[in-house]
């Protein structure tokens, strides 16, 4: 069994091609910044991963959690999507923090500073690490899924409050360059750099989609393996029982149908 399919292979090729094109544009074609020199090229990883993690990944996790909790749309799939999206989001936000830290060292001279956006990003990172921890708790899968969905929603409502609190607390980071609606029509960024940045967002979005689909399929397979292992164990016990002539076969049969589903 594989997690790949025709669709994901095409998606994978498109992801690789756009990432390669982004790398070429970012490293070769686009100019170095007047003040920041070559360090500005980190922007093409930093901005798209931050954007995808915060808006897309955690947005999808929240939406999928709501769909899972809503009785009419409840399906195992939504739970798996929520978990997979959060995993990719935590990966991306970790990348954002790591790359941002390197960038900060070269331009601000420090690895970390207690600026509003850095701080709220760090809190967000820990919030979703907690969510992933809930997904790993040793418990009945249905209990775990329900609790994880509640945690995802509770974390999501905390995000704007964290953002506001930290924003009042202090601000040093430069304001958003492109996703600020006042500047949307007049971005303060040179042409090639803008196109490289936009392409990098596309490339990372494709990467996100590719990772998400594979992760969901992998999670499905993991569940199948768990079920299979349980069935095998039951069959083994039943065989033992039959060999010993024990009369407990009926109970085991009951367990095999009642326990798995």
């Amino acid at each position: 069994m594989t997690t790949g399919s025709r669709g994901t292979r095409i998606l994978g090729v498109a992801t690789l091609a756009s990432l390669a094109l982004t790398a070429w544009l970012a490293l070769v074609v686009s100019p170095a910044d007047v003040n920041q020199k070559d360090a500005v090229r980190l922007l093409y990883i930093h901005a798209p991963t931050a954007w995808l993690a915060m808006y897309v990944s955690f947005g999808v996790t929240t939406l999928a959690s709501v769909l899972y909790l809503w009785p009419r749309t409840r399906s195992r799939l939504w739970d798996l999507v929520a978990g997979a999206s959060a995993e990719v989001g935590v990966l991306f936000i970790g990348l954002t923090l790591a790359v941002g830290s390197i960038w900060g060292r070269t331009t601000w001279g420090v690895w970390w500073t207690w600026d509003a956006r850095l701080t709220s990003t760090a809190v967000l990172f820990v919030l979703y690490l907690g969510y992933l921890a809930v997904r790993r708790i040793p418990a009945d899968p249905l209990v775990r899924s329900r609790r994880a969905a509640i945690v995802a929603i509770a974390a999501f409502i905390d995000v704007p409050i964290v953002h506001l609190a930290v924003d009042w607390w202090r601000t040093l980071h430069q304001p958003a360059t492109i996703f600020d609606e006042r500047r949307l029509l007049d971005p303060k960024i040179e042409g090639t750099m803008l196109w490289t940045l936009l392409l990098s967002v596309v490339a990372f979005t494709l990467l996100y989609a590719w990772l998400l689909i594979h992760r969901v399929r992998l999670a499905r397979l993991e569940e199948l393996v768990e079920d299979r292992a349980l069935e095998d164990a039951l069959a083994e016990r039943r065989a033992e029982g039959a060999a010993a002539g024990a009369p407990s076969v009926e109970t085991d049969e009951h367990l095999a149908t009642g326990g798995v589903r």
Partner: protein
Amino acid sequence: MVPPERATTEGEPALWRDAGLVAGKDLRVEARSRVATNQVVPFALLVLILFAFALDPDRGILGRAAPGLFWVTVLFSAVLAIQRSFAIEADDDARDALRLSGLDGAGIFLGKAAAVALQLLALEAVLAVGVAVLYGVSLRGGGLLILICLLATAGIAASGIVYGVVAAGLRVSDTLLPLLVLPVLAPVLLAATRASEAALATVPGDAWPWVRLLAVFATIYTVFGVVAFGPLLEEA
């Protein structure tokens, strides 16, 4: 135990009656077991002393950092209080009894949150005296400080009980709860600390935005708990 008066009311009053019953039960358990008074309060005072070891008392850091240290201590103690609040449900399958009691889920949530909030408020009163004595802080702006304590405690208790039930009944609940609840409480720590600083420096104008933030946080998590607690309690 006095049997609850049945068939008095329906709808809203029943919610408050259920909340009162659960809060009364939790506080009665606490009054008899004395875990909060014998363990949580001494722990909180110990943390205040540990801060003095970590931050040299002679350099005046303690006095300046007192509001922050106070609220960090409250948060750590709150984690213990929340764990305790669900530990008493784990013994003798009390949780099942609670579920079968027919009490409203929202009422149980409000009751448990109120019980934790009352314990935390008592703890904060002791801690405030501790900070005043040990760190040499004079407690000015009393009325505003009390308001800050009330709102922050409501937020801590409401969100804490939500996460407490998420972690309840699991083998890993002791380690999971702090990881879940402390990041969520980050805005409360920030707001309560800044507001307390402003109140102590007697510039209440600076405190109001933070007080409003505390009120919003408490409201949001109380509403969330009222909605989500019933289903969470059902399935576990």
